């Protein structure tokens, strides 16, 4: 099959064509600036090709099975709430605000009255684009360029709804904010997350996505923008637990200002295929970011993460740690880059990717990289990949554990380094439970 034949199948205009876009504009009640932005993104979508399989970011991705014609954007916003979509991060958590979306459209919103009085905004992105127009206009798609690739352009043009969190200057949101995206079997989620922390603000945001059933199908094409001004502190947790029949495409960006701190925890468990482009930009001196990633795959799951930690200013620190456990014939690709701009002296950048294979047929591609244009920096990176040590299993079995218990214990220990870095206890417990559920019964 030639490349053109592959993209012919992908490039369906039946459901994501001009008529669908025109109907979307007709149905929506958007401010004029937003309609103009959508039109610009749509022009980009129409003018560029789908990602080239020879492109470095896409050459380890398998898009041939994606048929866009099987999916349709949720234009009418008629939402049937799917039953049984699990919510894992809420257990034992007292939240200050919560948003829930179904198929990319927010269906419920709540916010502590005291916080609302302090100017905190947590709500549907569509609604906030009207009610807080100037704010949303300033920040929406300020980090994600629709020209990044055709998925980004599609999402920028046709995003259905999403989550807007705004914390004003010097306001500290003590309790976590919970966001939950549910997607029904065979449905589409084109949502967008926009979080803005003004100077001195602090917040914890727990985001999770799930499907009604482990085998559920669907298409998620989303965007995440985290914007932090000086001296702000954001803890952002993202648990991706889509059904194993879902396609998951996401552009995730963060911009961290002077003396600000970002702790970003990613847990990728679900989706049949995922392609995530994650970038953190440290734009002013003293900015610090820590990204903790957990991937646990099984069957024929294929997860691709392209990460970039971009030091644009001096005296910044970035620390990326990704750990993957792979079962069956699953595959992960992690391609990490530390980029240091000219003049970003005294940079301290670290990246590491560890992979633990639980089967002979699993495959992990780990490609760390450095691009340094300053001469007084410390940048280190590393990667390890290997099987479970049989001696460890033998030792555990000699102490009375079964082989299955031994493997579960070793997997938990493998992830412990990440758990130790997560400061929120309930998140640690939820991730631990999610991981324990994934471990197969081994003979």
């Amino acid at each position, binding site marked *: *099959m030639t490349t053109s034949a592959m993209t012919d199948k992908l490039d369906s205009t039946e459901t994501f064509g001009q008529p669908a876009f025109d109907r979307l504009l007709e149905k929506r009640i958007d401010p004029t600036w937003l309609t103009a932005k959508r039109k610009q993104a749509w022009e980009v979508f129409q003018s560029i090709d789908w990602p080239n399989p020879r492109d470095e970011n896409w*050459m380890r991705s398998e898009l*041939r*099975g994606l048929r866009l014609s099987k999916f349709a954007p949720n234009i009418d916003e008629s939402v049937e709430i799917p039953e049984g979509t699990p919510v894992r991060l809420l257990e034992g958590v007292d939240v200050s605000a919560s948003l829930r979306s179904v198929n990319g459209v927010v269906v419920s919103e709540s916010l502590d009255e005291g916080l609302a009085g302090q100017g905190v905004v947590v709500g549907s992105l569509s609604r906030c684009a009207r009610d807080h127009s100037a704010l949303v206009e300033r920040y929406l798609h300020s980090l994600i360029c629709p020209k990044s690739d055709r998925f980004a352009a599609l999402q920028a043009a046709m995003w259905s709804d999403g989550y807007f969190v705004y914390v004003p200057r010097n306001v500290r949101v003590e309790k976590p904010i919970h966001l939950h995206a549910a997607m029904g079997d065979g449905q589409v989620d084109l949502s967008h997350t926009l979080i803005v922390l003004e100077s001195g603000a602090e917040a914890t945001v727990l985001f999770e996505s799930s499907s009604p059933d482990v085998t559920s199908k669907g298409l998620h094409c989303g965007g995440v923008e985290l914007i932090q001004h000086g001296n702000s502190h954001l803890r952002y947790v993202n648990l991706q637990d889509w059904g194993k029949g879902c396609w998951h495409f996401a552009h995730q960006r963060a911009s961290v200002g002077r003396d600000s701190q970002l702790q970003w925890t990613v847990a990728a468990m679900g989706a049949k295929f995922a392609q995530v482009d994650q970038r953190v930009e440290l734009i002013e001196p003293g900015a610090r970011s820590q990204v903790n990633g957990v991937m646990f795959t099984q069957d*024929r799951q294929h997860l691709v993460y392209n990460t970039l930690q971009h030091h644009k200013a001096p005296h910044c620190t970035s620390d990326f740690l990704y750990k993957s456990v792979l079962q069956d014939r699953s595959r992960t690709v992690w391609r990490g880059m530390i980029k240091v701009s000219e003049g970003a002296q005294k940079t301290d950048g670290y990246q590491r990717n560890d992979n633990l294979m639980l089967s002979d*047929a699993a*495959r992990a591609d780990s490609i760390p990289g450095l691009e340094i244009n300053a001469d007084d920096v410390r940048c280190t990176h590393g990667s390890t990949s290997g099987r479970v040590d049989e001696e460890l299993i033998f030792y555990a079995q000699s102490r009375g554990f079964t082989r299955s218990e031994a493997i579960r214990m070793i997997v938990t220990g493998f992830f412990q380094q990440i758990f130790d870095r997560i400061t929120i206890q309930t998140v640690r417990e939820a991730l631990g439970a999610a991981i324990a559920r994934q471990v197969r019964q081994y003979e």
Partner: protein
Amino acid sequence: MKEPTTMPPFHYVCPRDQIRPNEPQTFEIDDRFVVLVEIDQVVHCIEDMCTHDGGTLGDGQLDGACLVCPRHGAKFDVRTGKAVCMPATEDTPSHTVKIDAGKIYVALNN
């Protein structure tokens, strides 16, 4: 106790006369991609995946009974899936082909 092993089901792929000698063709079966090749009047089927870098083999050229990966030159024997040339060191899965009434059926192994 181990469950009894069951034979994977056969999937209809295409009419027999669609596969021509020494011309690899790619098909999608049950969310997986495979390459069908006719060598010496026998149709063979292997996974459309180079075990070196996980890329596709379908655009590759035939060298005797071997399919050559178009990116780095690894070779796989289409009759067995065996990797016969570096940089691939692991075999790619080989699938069972059945021809019945002029139609090709494939059962996906492992």
